[in-house]
């Protein structure tokens, strides 16, 4: 390879940095959706690099379901301070009260779908015209077809049939009043790319990404953290296990994996060896219907 050639991670990084700069230039009020998970952490790192030594140009917005891991919340607060970004937190709990919504029921009742309400309210409250998210196309087949600049109507809805052609590296972010654009700068990254990047860049992560002891409920082979947010029945099997999280979502709908991996090298090695997809292994909510993500996106989800 010539000395003037980027390796694959550097190429992905260059593409993402280009996208970030387009967002900052094309929109009046962009925001970065930040959950404290590895994908949005990668976004923050890319944005830091895109605008250095200038100010971090987006507020970090967290849609808090109230079911988060405390470690992720602590990390979120730390990260906002670290990059000097404004942190905007809006709680699903408040939306439920204000809008008189019905809490989902069931053993692992998830507020995941309700986040959409809070997200759309937050977009309206702050008049955000672009929301940057960490979704990747390798995650799921609805995401595989979504544009990097994904225009949503004033209900936040994605219409897969009305997507703009996205040609070369030219991004058309023009919208009508009330619409907004979801931007996915790491669309072309895979889970392993994200982990390799975090390793290369030595980005600190919330501690739950590494092996730790945790009380878990074993449900259909998945390990679900014991927390006040799930219903525990007498017949449930609860064990203390060495686990880590492969993805960070709500405590109610994210499963842990058994692991002794304490370092990024060990985690990356495990991810390389795994034979189960990220969503399949860790997301309880995607199993409901085969088209779960497609439906949620059409309804205004991230």
């Amino acid at each position, binding site marked *: 390879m010539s000395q003037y050639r980027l390796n*694959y991670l550097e190429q992905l990084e260059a593409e993402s940095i280009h996208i970030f700069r387009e967002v900052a230039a094309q929109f009046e009020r962009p925001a970065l959706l930040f959950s404290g998970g590895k994908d949005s952490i990668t976004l923050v790192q890319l944005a830091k690099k895109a605008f250095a030594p200038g100010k971090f140009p987006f507020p970090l917005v967290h849609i808090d379901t109230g079911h988060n891991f405390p470690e992720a919340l602590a990390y979120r607060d730390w990260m906002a301070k670290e990059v000097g970004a404004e942190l905007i937190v809006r709680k699903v709990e408040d939306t439920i009260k204000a809008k008189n919504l019905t809490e989902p029921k069931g053993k692992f009742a998830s507020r995941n779908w309700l986040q959409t309400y809070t997200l759309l309210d937050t977009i309206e409250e702050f008049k955000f015209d672009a929301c940057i998210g960490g979704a990747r196309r390798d995650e799921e087949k609805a995401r595989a077809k979504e544009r990097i600049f994904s225009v949503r109507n004033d209900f936040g809805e994605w219409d897969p049939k009305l997507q703009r052609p996205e040609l070369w590296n030219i991004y058309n972010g023009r919208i009508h009043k009330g619409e907004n654009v979801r931007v996915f700068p790491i669309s072309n990254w895979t889970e392993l790319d994200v982990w390799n990047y975090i390793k290369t860049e030595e980005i600190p992560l919330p501690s739950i990404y590494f092996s730790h002891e945790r009380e878990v409920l074993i449900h259909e082979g998945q390990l679900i953290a014991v927390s006040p947010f799930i219903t525990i029945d007498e017949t449930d099997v609860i064990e203390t296990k060495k686990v880590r999280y492969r993805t960070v979502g709500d405590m109610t709908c994210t499963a842990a994996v058994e692991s002794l991996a304490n370092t990024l090298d060990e985690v990356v090695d495990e991810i390389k060896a795994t034979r189960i997809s990220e969503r399949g292994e860790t997301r309880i909510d995607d199993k409901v219907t085969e088209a779960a993500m497609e439906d949620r996106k059409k309804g205004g989800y991230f």
Partner: protein
Amino acid sequence: MDLLRFITAGSVDDGKSTLIGRLLYDSKSILADQLEAIERSTKNKANGEIDLALLTDGLRAEREQGITIDVAYRYFSTPKRKFIIADAPGHVQYTRNMITGASNASLIIVLIDARQGVVEQTRRHSIIASLLKIPHVVVAINKMDLVDFSQDVYNKIVTDYTSVAQQLGLTDVTYIPMSALQGDNIVDSSSNTPWYTGKPLLQFLEEIELDQDINLTDARFQVQFVIRPQTEELHDYRGYAGKIASGIYRKGDAVTVLPQQLETTISKIEVAGVEVEEAFAPQGVVLHLADDIDISRGDAIVKTAQLPKTSNELEILLCWLDDKPLQTGNKYLLQHNSRLVRAVVRNIEYKLDVNTLQQQPVEGSVKLNEVVKATIKTAAPLVYDSFDQLHTNGSAILVDETSNSTVAAVLLK
């Protein structure tokens, strides 16, 4: 390890989905739970084989309405390379889909059904590949199992396609006989084709030389965003953030800012806040100039020794992508990377038949999927190169200001 983006072009029955499924499956990119889901959906389980085509199955909206929503992206990697496949459907709205998928591809796999040989679709795919200057072409002669792996059939198709390639100026063409369904010549050389001495597909994709694909000679850079922290310690900092589209920039280079036509030198180059001596395409950088010049988003900083063209009246090849036809005389926005100018399309010279490459007179309006030669007048000058020479600085889109839709792909001549 580097990155190869490619597009697969084939019509419905050429086995495109099976081929992609096979690549994903054999590179072990399909994980156990995804495989299980496919096994559940595989209707005919009698032969014990899974239906690889289901790996690229679409959205429910598509299945319900019998439509295909343009391009899906697939990912796989081997120890040698990461691959991004743009999977464009073969039938409805073909040109639009393929242009979208092909615009970032450096290789195209043209699928041919060995029983059918070179057909009209094959020609159309190849014409679009040549229009978009995709550097590498792989002709996948598929379903060889259905012609008894006949070398004569293979040779006939190679001869036929060679004349197509010559006509279109496609220079880097590789032919691989295969059966995606049975895995012949995909990962391993097949014992069914002892007469074929080339590489199997995956090995070919892993080893093809890509160094020449990025132009490192003509230095092109457009300002995306001006970084001005205006803090106490960075009071006078003024950096121009953008991506090097082609070429190499070094500290001290004599550069010209266009369209202002002002000459200066590069005083500093930064990558992610770290100063470097030189940077190259496609790196994202921040350039600093020795002189204080009024520069904003969309302006070009190029090496004085290799100037691009600057004009507000351009010859273009335009592919219309919108359901609403093109209105000559209407104003559109032209977006050339980060530069946005108003533009009017006029003098539509001819329409290009994408099946035959023949020039035809245009009657009435220009409609979806039509490719026309025209001239365009812009409100401010564009700084550009001919697409054929430097595609990163020779491509643009048209945006309808009233709908905000992207309505055309524009190749600057």
